[in-house]
Each structure stands twice: as structure tokens, then as C-alpha cells.
């Protein structure tokens, strides 16, 4: 019964959606509302206004910086939520953690991982720093660092991995990333602009272009490292085989 109702609901929704798609503007047409309304300004002026060659980065960090602030908060919130659900990690508990599966990973894989992790890290740094001129940016770089942490953790074990990236450092970077974003936003406030203006229009107009560039890079690095650490912490929290104290 319930199943039939759900299937009917889905079928109705599918029909509705297909009906809409049949009536939507043709894809890829330059005369579409999406291509004519807000976009031209971004494409024409992004380079002068935001000093980024990659228009997407310009939008993310400048035109819609508030969304990105929300995004960073979402990551932070996810971490807080996962730790709230699975229980916080006790200081120094993981470092003494013993892998219960008793499977030592293969020497070949270990050597290869040793060999590749530096490359992955450097590549992610490249992604973070070159977000304004090529595809990439803070969060992408962070996710790639997260990937390197994943492979390192699965191969070398949680204890080793968390010795290399201890909780202190993770917590500090996570907090600093979000906080940095807020403070950079407030900096614009102090300079007489609006929140998230990466400049001081009233105080030092001459400083503006270089200030924008530097603050953009700062924010990118913050997002990258913070995001990477959050992903790492979430991974650690999920791998950790520590029974949590449930209280009611």
C-alpha cells in the first residue's frame, strides 16, 4: 500500500518534471534568460573587478562571497555534527589506538603511497593557489588533501596518521579557517565598506587592488586547509573504533 502510494507519487513527479523540461528554454541557446540577464557583467568585468582570471572563483569569493561564508560554516557545522553524533575524540586517544584488523598492508602499496603523497600534497597546493587562473580553488584543494589523508590513513593506520596530523593542529586550522573568513569580512566593515568587501574603499583607496588579491588568496588558503582538516577529522571520527559513552 505504502509502496504503491510512493510509486504513484514518483511517477506523478516524473511526469511533471518531464512536462516542465519539454517547456523549458532550449539548452545552450544564447538568447535564454540565464544567458542574458545577470551573467554578462560577470563575464565582462570579473577580471577588472575581482582580479581573478577564473570567473568562477571571482563569483565565489567576491560577488557571492556570502554564500561561500555559508559554505564554510556548513563544513564546520558538519564536523560539529559528526563529532556530536559519534562522540568527541578524547585528547591523545587515537594516538594510542591499535588497529584491530591485524592486516598489515602490502609493502608495495606502502612504498607507492609514500611515493605519491608528496605529489598529491603539492598538487593540492597548486590547486589552491592557482584557483584564480585555472580550475580549482580552496575547497577543491582541500578535498584533494583529504584524499591523500584517506589513502595514508587506510594504508598506514589511524594511529600513524593522527600522529602526523594531531588533533591540536586540526582543531586550530578548522577554527582558523572559518574565523579568518569572518574576520576578513569584518575588515571590510572597518574600512568603511560593506561586510565581505575585500578592500578599504574609504580609508585607503590606493591600496585596493593589491588588498583584494592578497585577501582573496588568504581566504582561499584558509578554506583549503580548513576544509582538508575537516574532512580528515570526519574520516578519523568515522574510522575510530572507540565505543562512545551513551548517556540518557
Amino acid at each position, binding site marked *: 500500500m505504502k509502496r504503491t502510494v510512493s510509486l504513484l507519487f514518483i511517477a506523478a513527479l516524473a511526469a511533471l518534471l518531464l512536462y516542465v523540461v519539454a517547456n523549458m528554454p532550449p539548452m545552450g541557446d544564447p538568447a535564454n534568460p540565464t544567458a542574458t540577464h545577470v551573467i554578462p557583467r560577470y563575464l565582462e568585468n570579473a577580471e577588472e573587478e575581482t582580479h581573478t582570471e577564473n570567473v568562477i572563483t571571482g563569483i565565489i569569493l567576491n560577488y557571492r562571497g556570502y554564500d561561500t561564508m555559508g559554505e564554510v560554516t556548513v563544513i564546520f557545522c558538519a564536523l560539529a555534527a559528526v563529532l556530536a553524533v559519534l562522540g568527541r575524540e578524547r585528547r591523545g586517544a587515537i594516538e594510542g589506538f591499535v588497529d584491530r584488523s591485524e592486516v598489515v598492508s602490502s609493502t*608495495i602499496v606502502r*612504498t607507492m603511497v*609514500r*611515493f605519491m*603523497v608528496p605529489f598529491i600534497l*603539492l598538487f593540492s*597546493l*597548486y590547486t589552491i593557489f592557482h584557483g584564480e587562473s585555472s580550475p580549482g580553488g580552496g575547497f577543491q584543494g582541500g578535498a584533494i588533501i583529504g584524499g591523500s589523508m584517506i589513502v595514508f590513513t587506510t594504508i598506514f593506520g589511524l594511529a600513524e596518521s593522527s600522529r602526523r596530523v594531531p588533533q591540536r593542529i586540526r582543531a586550530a586550522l578548522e577554527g582558523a579557517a572559518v574565523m579568518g573568513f569572518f574576520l576578513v569580512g569584518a575588515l571590510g566593515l572597518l574600512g568603511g565598506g560593506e561586510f565581505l568587501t575585500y578592500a578599504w574603499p574609504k580609508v585607503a583607496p590606493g591600496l585596493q587592488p593589491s588588498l583584494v588579491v592578497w585577501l582573496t588568496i588568504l581566504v582561499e588558503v584558509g578554506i583549503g586547509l580548513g576544509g582538508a582538516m575537516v574532512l580528515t577529522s570526519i574520516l578519523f571520527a568515522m574510522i575510530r573504533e572507540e565505543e562512545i559513552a551513551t548517556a540518557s
Partner: protein
Amino acid sequence: MNWLSAVLGERILGTAKAFRRRGLLFVIMILFWIILTASLALHEMLLGAICSAAVAALTVSLLGRALDPHITPAVLLRLPLFMLRLIWEIVKANLDVARIILNPGLPIDPRIVEYRTYLPGDLPRTVFSDSITLTPGTVTVELRGDLLNVHCLCPYHEEGLAGLERLVAWLFGVRRDGEVRKGG
């Protein structure tokens, strides 16, 4: 005073060793950076130097341990030749596998054989087993100490292993008795 100089010497030597590892890693990293950024502009190089230094400092304990005793300039010089030879082997391997796959009778007689290698250290063994995996009809499925378990598609594939081992030994300058040739 003797012990002091000994300790100092050791310290300096150790530092030098670590520095050499780090330096090697740094050079590799900055080369990779140049490939990535595809430019030789000054500010890119500066940024690259900073990033590479950071990565090298962070991961030297990771990569350095695997690299240090084995990577010498001579090895780096021999590497391209080794690669060429390996690619030739890979092409041969592929033609061989192609012959097997395209044969309607599928003439295979797979087995897992053991092979004891005389190559020392993790890196040469890893290179050896990866080369095995890439060359005719053999896949390394397990490496425990100096004992390799190799899955062979056909019995005659097993014979190729010794030649490959000689090739890897040549690359790392290892003699049959397990001594590492100094300097190359």
C-alpha cells in the same frame, strides 16, 4: 675531546643526510611544480619554492626513508634507459596477452608461483614487483619479505622473472650477493 668531535660529526653528518634527502625531495617537488604551472615566471617560482619546501619538510620522513639508500645520481641517470627497456617489455607483454585473449581456445594454465628475490630494501622490491605486474603474463599478488607470490598466466611466463630481476638490479646497482655497489 674525541667523543665530542665524534658526536658533532655524527650530528653534522646526520643533518647533512637529512638535508640531502630534503634537498632531493625539494628538487623533485619543484620540478613537478614547474610542470604543473607550465611557466617559469619569477613569482610562480617563488610560490613554488615555498610550497615545495613546505611539502618537502612535511613529508621527508615519509618519502625519505624509502628513497634515501637507493636513489643516487647514477640511479637517476639509468632510470630513462630502464624506462625504455620496461616499455619495450610492456609492449611485448601486451602482444603476448593479446595473442592469448584473441585465441578462441584461451590457452592459459594459471598458477601462483613463489619467487625469492635477492633485491634488498623496499624500493627495489617494489619496482621489481611493479615491473612484474606490467610485464608478460605475471601479476605480483603478494610480497612478504623477499618472497614474492606471482600469478602466472602460462608456465613459460615464469621464466621471464629472472631477466627482469637482473634489469632492476642493474638499475639500483645491486649485485647478486646483495651488496650495493657504491657510486655505480
